[in-house]
């Protein structure tokens, strides 16, 4: 096992090393990568949700000046492996959702490609599609497992009997809508086929994952796919694994006469092809004694997947470890629909799955006349209720208490609808937050001493999160040198393999590899290495992962104002307190937490992908209609953390922080809105009409 690092560079708020390049526009994102004579692709998308393409007339498009080729299933590359229904585009005439790629135009300019794509006429044999999610469907079905490999259902004790005998029962249904990851940087890929195989400049959360996913699809050995992605303008899970646009642009690059082909999805296109968070319908039942001690928790989730590829969000999984209760059941059921393929979106599982239960806990607190913080404290488990393992570091109560102190919770009058500030009803709310502390083994770091610098390379990703900066800090401490003595390289498959930037595992996984490499390097070459000294080392598995339940925790506090006449709602104050192990760079960490909380604010008040089931499309598919918070919505927001080092979390003592900031935020806001208005809204988002 790698020895714990001594923190010297770690813990300091150094500025982003890539900051100047970014604000001066010189950091090359995928679209800006210099390539020779690029051609441009514009996709053709299906306008039906289910059926067959009976004809594609490309003549008008081909006749347009500047069009290089029109891609359809008739000239598309045959894929070796079509088992992934999302990636297997243009292989036959079937249409599985509206907006699916059925072709594309390659042209000299993006404008020409777009115009020519509009000239392609398609005829269909349309079948009746089904895009309506409801909990009453009689064809809901249990997947074999849910995302991240968790079991679909769990049961402990006899929850039904416990509910029947409980002094207090909360039985409510909560819903969260579909939401779309909307990173600032569009989903962009530049593809070129060369003698060495396929070269991709991609906006991705993991270059190595892209090539591993694509190699079997194209039937290529892994070394014949080269992926470069030094800077990514946000991903939130939607750039975790390649979506079908990467296949489309690679197909197009086969028809361009060897020229590189560029594709950046438009905002509208993103809404059908780049993944999204499934809507969820969550029935939560809590049984408790009169003091609010839980005897039973039941969390039954209904959500959707696309028929062409299964994705089952692990929505009820956090309920399995969050609070103590003798009797517990969690279930997931899927409606299989003719809709775009859902996928990962910041904190899949925890984010929607902590909404229902954390509002239910507020309802329980009220029913029992107990402070909402107290009710959580009373249900604090001593060991992980699911695995029976001890928690590595469970500091939920400390987060709640510290937050209560700073937020001024003690003075809270628990009665709803009794505070008026001008015409605004005011209230406060709290919710717990949690996220698993995973790290992935197998990442490899290379260290080479050259030009007086320690060159550290690893094929990791920076989604705007700060990877460039924090890995440099980790490397400095791993080698016992200054940050200025390290030169980091990330974001390329030419560099040693790295796990994905996902599941908040990046820092711990890559950092462990760097720590291991640093330790080995110092052992082998000492502190005065010679030019050319070089080695690679892989991150060992963290043995604590098998002994402990490893999770981060947090407490979210919100103060909300609701206009008593118009129903407008504002989050006037928000505080997040997190326990996430060592914070390697307070500056970039704070930005991650605040970003997560802001996205949680958006989830609470704004985000809602409106599916029109008659067409099978998200109708509000642009930024004028799909709302995320504007600056004016984000008022007084702060994030702090407990000062801690997690001795079980590997040599860095750090757990990931990319996702926990969003978890619980929406519930805290909904609870505060209830406290302000006396109106319990159980369906997100909390729009003004719900408070009239």
């Amino acid at each position, binding site marked *: 096992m790698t020895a714990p690092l001594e923190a010297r560079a770690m813990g300091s708020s150094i500025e982003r090393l890539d900051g100047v390049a970014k604000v001066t526009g010189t950091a090359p994102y995928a679209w800006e990568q210099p390539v020779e004579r690029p051609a441009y692709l514009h996709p053709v998308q299906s306008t039906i949700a289910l059926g067959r393409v009976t004809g594609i007339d490309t003549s008008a498009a081909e006749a347009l000046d500047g069009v290089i080729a029109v891609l359809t299933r008739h000239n598309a590359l045959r894929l070796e492996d079509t088992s992934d229904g999302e990636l297997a585009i243009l292989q036959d005439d079937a249409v599985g959702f509206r907006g699916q790629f059925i072709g594309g135009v390659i042209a000299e300019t993006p404008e020409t490609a777009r115009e020519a794509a509009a000239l392609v006429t398609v005829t269909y044999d349309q079948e009746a599609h089904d895009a309506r999610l409801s909990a009453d469907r009689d064809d809901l079905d249990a997947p074999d497992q849910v995302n991240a490999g968790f079991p679909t259902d769990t049961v402990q004790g006899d929850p039904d009997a416990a509910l029947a005998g409980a002094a207090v029962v909360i039985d409510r249904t909560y819903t969260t809508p579909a939401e779309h990851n909307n990173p600032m940087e569009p989903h962009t890929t530049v593809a070129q086929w060369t003698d060495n195989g396929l070269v991709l400049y991609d906006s991705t959360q993991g270059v190595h994952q892209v090539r591993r996913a694509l190699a079997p699809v194209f039937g290529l050995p892994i070394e014949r796919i080269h992926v470069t992605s030094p800077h990514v303008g946000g991903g939130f899970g939607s750039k975790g694994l390649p979506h079908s646009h990467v296949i489309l642009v690679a197909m197009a690059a086969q028809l361009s006469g060897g020229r590189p082909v560029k594709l950046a999805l438009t905002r509208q296109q993103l809404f059908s092809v780049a993944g999204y968070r499934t809507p969820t319908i969550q029935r939560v039942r809590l049984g408790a004694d009169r003091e609010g001690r839980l005897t039973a928790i039941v969390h039954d989730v209904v959500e959707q997947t696309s028929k062409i590829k299964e994705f089952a969000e692990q929505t009820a999984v956090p309920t399995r470890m969050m609070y103590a209760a003798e009797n517990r059941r969690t279930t997931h059921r899927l409606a299989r629909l003719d809709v775009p393929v859902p996928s990962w979106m910041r904190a899949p599982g925890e984010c929607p799955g902590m909404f229902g239960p954390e509002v239910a806990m507020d309802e329980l607190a009220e029913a029992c006349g107990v402070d909402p913080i107290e009710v959580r404290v009373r249900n604090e488990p001593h060991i992980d209720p699911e695995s029976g393992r001890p928690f590595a570091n469970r500091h939920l109560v400390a987060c709640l208490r510290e937050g209560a102190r700073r937020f001024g919770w003690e003075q809270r009058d628990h009665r709803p609808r009794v505070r008026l500030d001008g015409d605004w009803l005011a209230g406060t709310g709290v919710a717990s937050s949690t996220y698993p502390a995973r790290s992935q083994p197998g990442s490899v770091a290379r260290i080479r001493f050259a030009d007086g610098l320690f060159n550290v390379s690893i094929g990791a990703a920076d989604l705007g999160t700060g990877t460039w900066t924090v890995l440099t800090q980790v490397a400095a401490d791993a080698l016992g040198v200054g940050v200025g003595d390290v030169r980091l390289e990330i974001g390329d498959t030419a560099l040693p393999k790295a796990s994905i930037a996902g599941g908040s595992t990046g820092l711990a996984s890559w950092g462990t590899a760097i720590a291991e490499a640093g330790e080995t390097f110092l052992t082998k070459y000492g502190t005065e290495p010679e030019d050319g000294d070089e080695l690679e080392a892989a991150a060992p598995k963290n043995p604590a992962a098998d002994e402990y339940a490893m999770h981060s925790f947090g407490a979210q506090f919100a103060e909300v104002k609701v206009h008593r006449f118009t129903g407008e709602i504002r989050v006037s104050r928000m505080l997040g307190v997190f326990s996430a192990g060592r914070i390697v760079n307070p500056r970039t960490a704070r930005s991650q937490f605040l970003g997560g909380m802001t996205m949680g604010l958006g989830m609470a*008040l704004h985000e809602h992908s409106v599916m029109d089931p008659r067409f099978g*499309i998200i109708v509000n598919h642009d930024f004028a209609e799909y709302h995320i918070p504007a600056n004016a*919505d984000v008022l007084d927001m702060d994030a702090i953390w407990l000062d801690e080092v997690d001795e079980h979390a590997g040599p860095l003592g750090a757990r990931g922080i990319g996702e926990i900031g969003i978890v619980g935020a929406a519930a805290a806001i909904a609870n505060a809105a209830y406290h302000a208005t006396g109106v319990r809204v159980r369906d997100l988002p909390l729009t003004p009409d719900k408070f*009239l």
Partner: protein
Amino acid sequence: MKPFDYRRAVAPESAIADVAGNPEAAYLAGGTNLVDHMKLGIAEPRLLVDITSLPLDEVAETQDGGVSIGANVRNSDLAAHPLIRSRYPVLSQALLSGASGQLRNLATTGGNLLQRTRCVYFQDVTTPCNKRAPGSGCSALEGYSRYHAILGASDDCIAVHPSDIAVALAALDATVVVQGPSGERSMALTDLHRLPDSRPDLDTVLEHGDLITAVRLPGLPWAERSAYRKVRDRASYAFALVSVAGAVELEDDGGAPGEVPVIRQVRIALGGVAHKPWRATLAEETLRGVQATHENFRAAADAELERAAPVGDNAFKVPMVRNTMISVLHELTREYS
């Protein structure tokens, strides 16, 4: 986007001739709506006549004590203009509540009035829409209608007009000056936009080639007591769910001390409720000559909303308009009531 020609207009007359003579020509002002529509395939002009160099960018006092606003005056400039801020706060507030800073820097007065609905089906050429493709049907009627009309809609279209400033201008009795192939005319702003009836494809009464050259505000000293209240889904940068533009003049004497004053004149216009900025004439009638009390405000709102016909997702707009109207009236008469 279809290929198109671009011409920079040098004089109104030639610009009008260029557009009037070519059914596929369009005026280009700030382009913040038209260019989006060209990208989305909603508008496919073959010739753009850029009018932003025409000398239509003055804000000037008129002889009757009013203000004349050139059609090319940018939304941000108009909002900041001292004459507008001091005499017509309702208009300045409406301007600042619209879009974002960047958009307001580009958007013009004329273009803002002629922007088209944000109905999501209108903006998606793959769905039926009578306004975009006459006769294809109205997808909103049984679809996503949260933002749609509760007043004056038809079975063919329930879209709303999205402009904020049009609502303020409707309340202020603004007139629109239009120059067409056959000369200049002017009309009340409330007559510019139409109700959809069976021709939702027509947003306004303008003919192809008509150029808006100016908007005139009458002298209205009591409009200093005016306000624009926009209710939306987020704090900024969102179209109105509903909005209320109001101006109130109270009787001078204000009644005996301690007595509730009487309303002499009142202007109310509503946004987010109809295919046009909706002048709330029934509410105004109810309020004229009565005391500025909550009950009277409510009676006025009820009078206006009696004809409201929500379609599904938008039933909330009825209480929302009522409450917002009452709230604005309270605000405008606060020191008295």
